[in-house]
């Protein structure tokens, strides 16, 4: 399988709150991601796991450059995103869908229009948009909700709209930032099945951030274990078990 996502020594720090100063009196920089390299293969479901503050969400956001890395390369399907101009990056992003913990749907637009929006901005032929939206809503089993507004939906339904919206322009990569953290266990299970189906049927590479070990065990092929901005190890997930080898990694994995 080809390498779909290659991160080469990416780093990211943020300027801390003004009240925190270093000893020399300068503002403190907080390192969210220490130099990290990672390769994710085409068609893989890859987990980013760790406690809060481990840098897993930041690492995910580096993949579509919602956060620009301080150094290193982000290579998606052979293209180094860090070298692209603003307009080239916009085009590259049509190939990278994203879903969010808080769904982030446009609340004043119907389900249909939320999905159609992503197709419009990615330059999808306008006469085919209606059919494509309905096809995507069928994949997430929401065709009967096309005319509803997000406020009229349950959390699980909102996240499924998020998925339909993200996959509409047929991206190669789907980034999922804690997609089940706002959902109850039963809804989480059905959402994970939905993501698994999409991966199998469409061949989309999925990168999912979560702090729930059960999500990794049920869904992922491999998972990166992160701790305080550092990549501890990349563990295989076999037979529903995360094969951690490092001491902290093992500690992370046993908790659930």
């Amino acid at each position: 399988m080809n390498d779909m996502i290659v991160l080469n020594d990416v780093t990211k720090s943020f300027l801390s709150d003004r009240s925190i100063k270093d000893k020399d009196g300068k503002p403190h920089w907080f390192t969210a991601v220490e130099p990290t390299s990672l390769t994710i293969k085409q068609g893989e479901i890859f987990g980013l796991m760790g406690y809060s503050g481990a840098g897993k969400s930041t690492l995910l956001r580096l993949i579509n450059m919602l956060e620009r890395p301080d150094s290193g390369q982000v290579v998606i399907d052979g293209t180094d995103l860090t070298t692209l101009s603003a307009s080239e990056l916009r085009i590259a992003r049509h190939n990278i869908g994203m879903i969010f913990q808080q769904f982030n749907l446009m609340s004043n637009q119907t389900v249909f229009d939320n999905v159609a929006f992503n197709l419009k901005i990615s330059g999808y032929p306008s006469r085919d948009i209606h059919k494509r939206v309905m096809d995507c809503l069928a994949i997430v089993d929401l065709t009967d909700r096309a005319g509803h507004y997000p406020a009229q939906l349950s959390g699980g339904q909102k996240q499924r709209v998020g998925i339909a919206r993200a996959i509409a322009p047929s991206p190669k990569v789907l980034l999922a930032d804690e997609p089940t953290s706002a959902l109850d266990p039963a809804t989480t299970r059905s959402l994970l099945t939905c993501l698994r189906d999409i991966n199998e049927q469409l061949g989309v590479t999925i990168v999912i951030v979560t702090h729930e070990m059960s999500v990794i065990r049920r869904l992922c092929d491999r998972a990166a274990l992160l701790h305080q901005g550092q990549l501890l190890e990349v563990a295989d997930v076999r037979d529903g078990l995360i094969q951690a080898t490092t001491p902290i990694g093992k500690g992370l994995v046993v908790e659930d």
Partner: protein
Amino acid sequence: MLTGTELSASIDKLLVLRKEIVSAFIDTFVMLGISTTVAIVIGGLFGVFLFLSSDRQFLQNKTLYAVLGGITNFMRAFPFVILMIAMSPFTKAIVGTGIGPIAASLVLAIAGSFYFARLVEQNLREVPRGIIEATESMGARPFTIIKVLLNEARSGLVLSVTILCISLLSYSAAAGMIGGGGLGDLAIRYGYYRYQTEVMIFIVLVLSIMVISIQASGNWLATRLDKR
């Protein structure tokens, strides 16, 4: 209580003034129409840029935000009457005259623009940041992101236009000072200077009905547009 005779005498006094009342009504509509429209366009643009240049937005720029914010604060610090006097050379240059409803509209438009700019900024700030991020992650152009922002904030924006319109109606009374005319001016000239209380009461009633109608339509539209 008013007796029948007193009431009919009052109505007669109002009827004598009907031409002035009608023309004041027209002047008020002209002032409101021009100034609200201009303030929505200029203030709207200004407000969008205020918001976009603020911290963590995609045009984030401390200097630009400070300059735009400074201009807005400075213009909003002017008491309306003083702004009118201060702007008179400017209105003369643009409209050709410093007096009359059109000249007054210009001053109202400027005062309203900076007022509205802040309201727009505040409304955009209430759009959840995640929605902007989701739009960015899809590869939307900046102009598309602005459209999404405005659409998400639309119900609050309609209420802000309502407040703007009512404030301008109230400011327009002061515009009488530069011959702006309008209902407020009529109420001051006849009701106050000439002690014709019935004119004052009548105009205040008309103004109240206008304010109530504007607010009610604004509320109605805002509720209809709000799908959150």
